[in-house]
Each structure stands twice: as C-alpha cells, then as structure tokens.
C-alpha cells in the first residue's frame, strides 16, 4: 500500500479509452462498477466535446460479484452494436475487472459472433502499466488487429504512394495541445511537399488502417504514445520511423533532416531526384520563425543564466530542457519526468543540459526539489504550477496532466516552427519581464503601500453580537466584506442597532444575495 494524494499519470483504462474514443466510430465498453465512467466527464468538459463520448460501462454490481457477468457483457456489446453500429467495440478492463479474473476474452469471442462490429479486448494490466503505457499498447493492438484482418482479406498489398508520404502516429484525445500540434505538423509536411497518409488515432477510421503501409515512413511526435505501433510497422513492413520530437528550432530541424534521410532512400527511384530540405530549414529558422531572432535579441539577454526547473512527461520535459539550455541560454538546474518506465531514455536526452535529473512520480519530491533549488521560473504540469503558486514562483505549463485552461480555443501548437514562437512567448512571459526586473532591483520593489481596508463605511454605530460575529467569520474571506456591508445597510434601513444572526439572514433574503 502507498499513501498517495495525487498522481501524474492515470490508471491504465484511461489510456485505452483515450485511444478508442479518438478513432471515429469506435465504441469502448468498460467492465466497471458504477461511477468509473468519469472519463466521459473529462472528455466532455476538458475537450468541450460536442458529441457523446463513445464510452459506456457494463456495470459490475453485487449480482455480478455473486454470479459473474454471465450474459451481461455480451448483451451490452450486442446492444451497442445495434444502437450505434460502430466499426469496432473495445472491451476495456478496469482495476475491478482485473481482480475478478473473468474470462473476458471468451465474452469477446461470443459477442463478435453475434455482432456486425469487430470486437476486441484491450490487453492491458491495470497493476503493471499506467495511462500512457496502456494507450501505447492499445494503439498497437488496434493497428495490429486491422492489418492482420486486411492481410487475411487480401486487401493489404498496396504499393507505397508515388510522392513521399508519412503517417502521423500518436495524436489523440485529452493530449496536451495535440490538436494544434497535428495541424502544425500537417502544415510543416505540406511545406516540404510530403503527403499525410493517415493520422492515427485522432479522427482516424479503423477501416483505413490497412492503408498505413502505403506511407514511406512514420512520424511519432510524442515519445509516450505511438512508438510501439511504429516498431510493429517497422518489423512487419520494414517501414522506417522518425521519433524525434520536432519541438524547438534545433529539434524541428533534426526531425526534418531525419525525414529527409528516409525519403531519399526512395526518392531517386520513385521521383528521379533526391530531396534537400536544408534551404527550407534555413529559411524558416532565420526568417519565418521568430524564435531564433528572439534568442539573439537583447530582451533574451536578460534570461541568460536565470535558473529554471523543468518537469513533465518525457517528450515535453526533455525537449523543453534542451530548448531552454541550448536555444535560450537559461540555466536548467533540474530536469525531471514522472515517466519512470522511460527514465533511462530521459536521462540520456537531457545529459549535458542540466545539473540534476529527477525521475519520480511523487509530487512532494518534486515540490521539495523546487523549494530547495528556488528557480526563477518553473516549466511543468499543473501540479508544478500549484507548487509554484505556493512558493511564489512563476510557472509555464508544458505538459500533461492539465486543466481545462490547457485546452485553449486559439491556435497554440508546441511543435514545428509556430510552436517555437509559442514556446518563446511562454518562456519570456514566465520570467519577470526584463526591464521590470531591472527596475525592481534598482528601486527595491513594487509600491508596497497596502490597501488597508476594503470597507467603505467608517466607524460603525452598529453592534454585532458574538454569535453574528462568529457567523460572519465563517463566511469565506472574499465575500465577507460584502456580506458585512449588506447586513449593516439592511440594519440601518430598518432602524436596527444590534446585529444578530437573524438580522444577517433577514438581510440576505431581503437583498436576494
């Protein structure tokens, strides 16, 4: 047992549900007790989804405990098949069902005979993997299922496309700025004359998965989800993949160069010429993206040597560490990640860009580290933002877990060249603005004359009896003043001189406040 207040990555079934509900026309059925469908709330609220989340539960209750799920799971699958006609139904085990050890595979086999939809059982162990690992695994499982199916049907052997093309793997629902990143990546690829073959899972159709091998290569922008699929496709079809995150100017250039290498294996044969993206990289870096110029501009000078701490998932924390250290001259004291399963990769990535590396999923350890280091700014998840609030240190949010404000309506990619601009803004705005900082140092701080009282009434002729005073003190501070004023106003209007609890509530009712 572990005493836990907060966790960075969710339970396994969340990962499976995120992948399943990202595909078009795929329905997930959770084998779970009442109340475990909280995923629907998150998707509906955080992503502000207009459509019903395609996730339902086959409820595990007392009867199920006593007699097993028996027909219930099969019935729920076939019912959903009739109601919504999904292409695929993913039966999703939860922590509860994994202890029950029912033969869910058997239910799936029976249900798939009775329904037109394909039915699979998500192959994740609740006690061994977290949300991200489960998402990675489920995506691979779905891809494998449909490619096997296509192979059996003989619809798989399609030639690769005439012009260079890529699959983008790993864009999905509730991902950190994933929608914006996807748009930016498409734009980048279009600039390079590369076709986007398929984007999975977000918005993809499972029927189109058979087209995956038509692409020249796969692009896996995020370390956490998609790598297993890319490895599978490499093994089965010899498809190369690029897993360098195009985040930051150097990172983006590196990613484009790797894409170029892979494309040039086919280009001379299929297009009669090799591609050269160097002029594009140069043009974008020096003149289109503002980030390279920003790091030369004198504003950015003030950031030189400022202390920062970075924490998040492996992709964003590693990329951010490199951007801060390599592209902006910020001094990263500590970089860390909560993806403990991928700690070695992270360590290798940030080596040379920071003093220490912290790999933990315990937020108190992160908080202690930040308190010890006292950086000028933090770049982390929502948790670090709250730690920063408590310590009065600004924080830029660069990674999940996130709140609703990290699903902005405006265009905010983190990847590609527009992403570099966004990151530059985020970094710059997180540190105290340069000149302001300078002046603060010279003149010794802001105007410190405090607002002494918020109440407009001066010495009061009204007496509050002890009970009403106690009642007043129970009211949250930010409205207390208003309640006090309203009550006194009411008392004066009614010619009262003593304020009791009764008067307080009479005032509330009278003023309808």
């Amino acid at each position, binding site marked *: 047992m572990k005493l836990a207040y907060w966790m960075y990555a969710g*339970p396994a079934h969340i990962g499976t549900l995120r992948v399943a509900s990202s595909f078009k026309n795929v329905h997930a059925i959770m084998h779970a*007790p*009442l109340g475990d469908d909280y995923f629907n*709330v998150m998707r509906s*609220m955080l992503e502000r989804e207009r459509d019903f989340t395609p996730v339902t539960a086959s409820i595990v209750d007392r009867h199920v405990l006593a007699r097993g799920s028996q027909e219930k799971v099969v019935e729920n699958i076939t019912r959903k098949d009739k109601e919504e006609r999904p292409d695929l139904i993913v039966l999703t085990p939860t*922590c509860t069902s994994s202890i*029950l050890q029912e033969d869910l595979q058997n239910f799936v086999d029976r249900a798939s005979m009775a329904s037109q939809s394909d039915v699979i059982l998500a192959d994740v162990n609740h006690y061994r993997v977290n949300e991200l690992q489960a998402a990675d695994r489920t995506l691979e499982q779905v891809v494998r299922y449909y490619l096997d199916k296509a192979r059996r049907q003989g619809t798989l052997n399609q030639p690769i496309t005439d012009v260079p093309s890529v699959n983008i793997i790993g864009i999905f629902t509730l991902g950190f700025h994933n929608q914006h990143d996807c748009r930016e990546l498409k734009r980048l690829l279009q600039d390079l004359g590369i076709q986007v073959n398929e984007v999975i899972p977000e918005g993809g159709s499972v029927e189109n998965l058979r087209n995956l091998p038509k692409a020249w290569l796969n692009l896996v922008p995020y370390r956490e989800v998609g790598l297993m699929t890319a490895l599978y496709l490499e093994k089965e079809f010899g498809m190369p993949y690029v897993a360098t995150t195009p985040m930051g100017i150097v990172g983006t250039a590196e990613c484009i160069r790797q894409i170029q290498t892979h494309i040039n294996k086919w280009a001379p044969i299929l297009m009669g010429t090799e591609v050269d993206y160097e002029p594009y990289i140069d043009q974008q870096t020096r003149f289109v993206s503002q980030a390279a110029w920003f790091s030369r501009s004198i504003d950015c000078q003030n950031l030189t040597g400022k202390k920062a701490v970075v924490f998040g998932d492996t992709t964003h924390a590693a990329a951010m560490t490199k951007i801060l250290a390599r592209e902006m001259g910020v001094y990263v004291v500590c970089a860390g990640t909560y993806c403990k399963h991928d700690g070695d990769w992270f360590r290798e990535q940030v080596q040379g860009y920071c003093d220490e590396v912290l790999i933990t999923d315990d937020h108190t350890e992160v908080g202690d580290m930040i308190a010890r280091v006292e950086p000028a700014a933090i770049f982390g998840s929502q948790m670090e933002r709250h730690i920063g609030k408590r310590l009065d240190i600004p924080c830029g949010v660069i990674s999940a877990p996130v709140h609703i404000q990290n699903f902005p309506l405006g265009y905010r990619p983190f990847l590609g060249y527009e992403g570099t601009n966004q990151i530059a803004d985020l970094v710059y705005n997180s540190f105290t603005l340069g000149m302001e900082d300078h002046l603060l140092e010279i003149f010794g701080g802001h105007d410190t004359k405090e607002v002494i009282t918020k109440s407009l009434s001066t010495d009061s002729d009204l007496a509050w009896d002890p009970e009403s005073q106690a009642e007043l003190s129970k009211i949250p501070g930010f409205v207390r003043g208003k309640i006090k004023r309203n009550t006194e106003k009411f008392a004066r209007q009614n010619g009262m001189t003593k304020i009791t609890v009764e008067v307080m509530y009479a005032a509330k009712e009278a003023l309808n406040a």
Partner: protein
Amino acid sequence: MPSSRTSDPLTFECETGNYHTFCPISCVAWLYQKIEDSFFLVVGTKTCGYFLQNALGVMIFAEPRYAMAELEEGDISAQLNDYQELKRLCLQIKKDRNPSVIVWIGTCTTEIIKMDLEGMAPRLEAEIGIPIVVARANGLDYAFTQGEDTVLAAMAHRCPNHNQSLKDTPTQDQAVKGLLSFLPLQGKEKESQQSQNSIQHPPLVLFGSLPSSVVSQLNLELKKQSIHVSGWLPAQRYTELPSLGEGVYVCGVNPFLSRTATTLMRRKKCKLISAPFPIGPDGTRAWIEKICSVFAIQPNGLEEREKQVWDGLKDYLDLVRGKSVFFMGDNLLEVSLARFLIRCGMIVYEIGIPYMDKRYQAAELALLQKTCQEMGVPIPRIVEKPDNYNQVQRMRELQPDLAITGMAHANPLEARGISTKWSVEFTFAQIHGFTNARDILELVTRPLRRNLSLEALGWAGLVKRDKLNA
C-alpha cells in the same frame, strides 16, 4: 392537461442501471471539510485516486485531509499483510496530521478481495489510539451522495449514548471544567442550562451534512417555533457528535440518508420523524410543520414566512413558469427538487433517480403527489436505475426546456439545442431552508437566462446534421 391523471397513484419504473453518476467515494470531498478534525483514507486503487483528483479539481492542492491508501499488486495477491500496511499508513497520518478520527472508505476493490476492514479497525484503533470508522462507500452498491449515507450510518454507532450521558453528566462536567478552565465557560453554561430548562420537547437530533451556515439557518428556523436542536450528525468536529438513544427524535435533511435513518432507528433506538425535506420554501415549511406536529407544537407564522419567500422569488418564477424539466438522475435529490420546481410552475417530464427508498422518502413522495394535484399537472414518471441511452432518446422526443444532468451529457446535449444544468451543482450549493430557495432557482434559471441573452444569435444547434442522431 388531463387532470384525471393527477390523482393516479405514483408509479415507479426501473431500467437497466446504465447511467452516469459520481462514485460514492466523492463524499470525502465535502465530509472532510465538514468534520474539521477528521482524516479520510480511501482504501482503493489508482482508479479511485484518479477520480478524486479530477473530480475535486483545485481542492487537492489545499493540503486536503484525505488520501488514498493505494493498493498495489502485492496487496491484491495477499503477499502483503493488510493489517500491517494499514497500520503503517495510519501511523504516518497520525504523525503528520493528528486527526481525532480516521475514516476508512472501503471501495470496490476491498469488497472484491474481501478485505476485512470492519474486523481490522477495532484492533488498530486500540493499538494506535485514534478512532477508526469504516464506511463501505463503493460503486458496486451505491451512487454518489449515498456515500455520505454510509459514512453517517457508520458514525452513528460512535455517538455517545443519550441516557448514559445524562447519568454521567456530573463527572464529565467536572472533567471538562478542569480541562477548559481557562475559557470563560460560566456564562455560557448558565445560558445553556436556562435554555435546557425552558425546552418542552424531547431531544431532537438532525442528520445530514450541511455547510455550517445552513446548519445555523435551520436551527434558527426551528428556534422560532421554540424547538431546540440538541445536535447534528455530523457535527463540526468528530468530538462533538450528538448523544443518541431511546427517546431521542431524529429527522433527516437530505433524501439520500436512508441507511443512516435505519441505523438510528434500529440500532440507536431513536424515533424517526418522517418529513419532506427542507428544500424549497414549500419543503421547508412542510418539514418544520411535521416536526412541530410530532412535538405537538402549534407552528407560528410559517404561512406568512413561506409566502414572503415566494414573493421574493417572483422574478425567477416568471422565468420558469410553464417550462419543462427532465431529471436524468444521479444524486437522489431529484424528487425533492422536482416537487419544488412543480410548485414553481414547471412541468416535470421524468424524474430519474439512482435509488428510491419509498419508506424513507414517503412524506416527500406524498408531498410530490399533493403538489401535482394542486398545480394540476400530471405526476411525472419516476425512473429508478435509469438508462442514459434510453433517456437521451426520450429527450429527443420530448425536447424539454431544461435537462438536469451529469457533466458527461451536458455539453453534448447543449450542442443539440437542449439546455442543461449540471446536477452536481445542486449537491454542493446551499439549497436548504427558506433562505436558500433563491439559490436553487438561481441554478435552475441560469441556462434559461443564458438563453435569453444569446437568443438573437440563432446558434442553438451546434452539431452537424448527420451527427444529430448519434
């Protein structure tokens, strides 16, 4: 309206139970704030923890007095000793927070692996010297607010015995005096003795967790009828639990407390006053009247008080009159809220509800029926264990003006042009008593007022046509 139908008996339907609601462990969110010296330990998995941290949002960062005892694979396969593990965690909690009580919340997982929390608690309690209360608030058996019911039912066993406390009074008083001699107790004591002497009725204890200001409001309303509330379950602190026993009258303030009511009657031998719940001015008046009638007190000035509140609501009543409502059902407040809204002049199509205790809610159901008759509207269908999918189909037929629903369905329904109000807000807002009637309507009318301000824009349907049926 076919007025003949209003005299029909209430009918109850039961569907599949495929509906969205919060897990009952969510009760820790408001109970840890209510019981100031408590610590809630949820013995469960990452799934429970993830729900809590997401559902409670910002609260998690305010050093909450609750935590997960997160079960790992070794706990499930019994490689680790449950007792030793819980002891380790509880000692840590004692060291860090020193609470007056630790509440263990049993979850689905502890049920399935049959972890004997009730058996371990007394042993551990003796060993570490902190009371441990066990409540099985799991999703296998309960929905959302019923979590509070399981906690209060467990806590009822810890209330001091009423008769005994009378006998013990002198010695206890001495001890308390000794302990608190530095406080100016004398005056207060006299006062309380005086009020004790003037009370003409048996002790009354109210049960249900409410914010402290609502507690004082309800106490005050009863005081106006010269009824003295001798205690609340739960109190502000665990150490202030009310005395219970034979001769003590109890009355519920919330519709989801049926287990607590049963426990108080059967185990603590209290007398239950079955009344409608003090939600809305009509409910509040009926609640007070029922308590008065049990104590043979002639209620005084209630009619004018109710009328006054209704008069104050006029602007909101104009907005809601004639509008229709559909309760999808997830927090058991549905019958009381529907009854209030019908009195406000609304038409209720359906009352979805997770669980319906017809005995505990008897008075509320009778008032619902009476209200329907008086307002000349048909009695709404009451659907227990609803099926959300079917409900959405019914809503497409009925096109209600307002759906009161969970957050999983709110945005999709809004996008389809059906106004919604999140049902969870009714659980957290102050809705009890005369004073807070306006707050209920504030919530109910918010989508209607929003509609008024956006009406001219013509953007009600915001999904593409082919997706409308999805």
